[in-house]
């Protein structure tokens, strides 16, 4: 086997210099990215960073201005039908027919994706029980809650056994409990399929990126800024933050300021805040220095960098919560229609 072949076997999505322009706006700017099979990959970025545009091109509903990509080994430009057959999609906004029952929606999908007739019923029952929807399967979707609709959409995305699952903001507008449920479904799924299911998701929830994704890419202004595991990204930031509570922190601050393993010392609202370069026995060292100078430490806490810090570091902006996301506003609209 030559190297190219081995590469193809391991790669789920390969994006090469992909560009999309809308008039004078460049939404995706010569973006290249390789995503390995069997991983849960997160695309992070501020609003308008180009995540959804990228996803639309990968699922062949939008043509790129230049560049191309291969999804499951098929070219998005010349083999779009094979790409479509290989992928399952959960859109950011609702894409279910609320005038049909859950089961009818799934049957419709199975037929469109040419699932063999004798397998349809079994597959539907399988995904319904996987996402715990069996009991309500024969009710009209308009009676479902937001979380149930999301689960139904996820069930539908898996029905034709796709190799790649695209999730555009999968837990937007859902309550924390439902979000955690959905994360565990996604993780369980990829584990069960043992490398045969790759998940590509966009999110602007940092905890989602941290807890769910094997790897993330931070995207800003249509380009990949950095790509790594959440763990490495957090470690890559300069060390931990240590907060120390004591009387008159100024003395300890001046003692620590010259230390080569500490890069920043500041006093904020009576607390001494120390930014550490390297991990190790620095906490012990701080204690020793304090004891030698007769300073009594009342309380000490260590803060590891979060994905929020990582995001802030690379994009220079806080991730904003949209005023009202697509999912919620559409759900409301659906309710109003009755």
């Amino acid at each position: 086997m030559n190297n190219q072949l081995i590469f193809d076997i391991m790669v789920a999505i390969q994006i090469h210099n992909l560009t999309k322009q809308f008039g004078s706006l460049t939404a995706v700017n010569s973006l290249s990215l390789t995503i390995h099979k069997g991983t849960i990959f997160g695309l992070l970025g501020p609003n308008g960073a180009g995540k959804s545009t990228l996803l639309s091109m990968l699922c062949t509903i939008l043509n790129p201005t230049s560049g191309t990509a291969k999804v499951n080994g098929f070219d998005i430009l010349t083999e779009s039908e094979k790409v479509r057959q290989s992928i399952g999609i959960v859109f950011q906004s609702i894409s279910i027919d609320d005038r049909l029952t859950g089961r009818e929606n799934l049957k419709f999908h199975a037929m469109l994706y040419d699932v063999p007739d004798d397998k349809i019923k079994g597959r539907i029952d399988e995904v319904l029980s996987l996402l715990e929807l069996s009991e309500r399967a024969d009710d009209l979707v308009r009676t479902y809650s937001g979380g149930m609709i999301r689960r139904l959409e996820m069930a539908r995305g898996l029905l034709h056994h796709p190799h790649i699952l695209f999730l555009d903001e999968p837990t937007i507008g859902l309550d924390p409990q439902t979000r955690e449920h959905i994360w565990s479904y996604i993780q369980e799924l990829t584990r069960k399929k043992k490398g045969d299911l790759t998940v590509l998701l966009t999110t602007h929830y940092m905890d989602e990126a941290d807890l769910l994704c094997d790897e993330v890419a931070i995207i800003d202004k249509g380009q990949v800024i950095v790509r790594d595991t959440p763990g490495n990204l957090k470690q890559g930031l300069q060390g931990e933050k240590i907060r120390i509570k004591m009387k008159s922190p100024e003395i300890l601050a001046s003692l620590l300021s010259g230390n080569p393993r500490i890069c920043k010392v500041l006093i904020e609202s009576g607390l001494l805040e120390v930014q550490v370069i390297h991990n190790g026995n620095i906490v012990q060292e701080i204690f020793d220095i304090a004891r030698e100078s007769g300073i009594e430490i009342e309380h000490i806490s260590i803060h590891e960098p979060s994905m929020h810090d990582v995001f802030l570091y690379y994009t220079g902006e806080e991730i904003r919560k949209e005023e009202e996301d697509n999912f919620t506003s559409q759900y409301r609209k659906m309710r109003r229609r009755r």
Partner: protein
Amino acid sequence: MNKEIKAIYTIWLREMTKFSRERVSIASSLVTPVLWLFVFGGGMGINVRMGTMGNGYSVFIFPGIIGMTLLMTSIRSGISIIWDRDFGFLKEIMVAPISRISIVLGKALGGATTAIIEGVFILLLAFIVGIHLSIIQIILVIPVMFLISLGYNGFGLAFASSIQSSEGFQGIMGFIIMPTFFLSGALWPLTNAPGWLKTISYCNPLTYGVDVMRHIILGEGQFLLPADILVIICFATGTLILTSHFFSIKK
């Protein structure tokens, strides 16, 4: 190919499932044609006596009222794709591994089936206005209904895919349906109509559709039957090709 036929069938089936659940809207869409046939036809009929309408006014307008039923139902179901787009479902169809032509055909066939069912309801009222239809007449008129419905479904779909929002939905219905109906020779013989009215009506495909049905149901018509049929076939083919083209455009 087999897969595309399955896709067309699937999209058709969805339209049918939804249609079968909306009994109230089926009944309500029959109200307008029934009013025209009995109230307008009856009220005007007493006062209108013309040589060209030997059998009475209600009989004369009967094929036109069927045309109107087909027109209304077809355009409404064609345009319903705006709802699909607005409520997100269209995306599910658009990313499926099926051709755009299958989407358009499935949708148009579903709408046409709906229109035919409603058309047949009106057709069955023929005896009330004193028309006695044979089985053969009914069998002949259904394919004609099908062609007319397919054409106006395609028209509705083309229209829907070229407008952006659903806000003008009701307005569009009023803009298209009533003018098309009034300018189709459904309510009066075009032979005696003023020149401007004649000219516009001759450009209206529904004119020829109504004329075919008048040929079959009443045994009289203004144009030659093959010419009529050719026009409605061309109209249906044209609108479906146009719509398929609109659907294939990717941004």
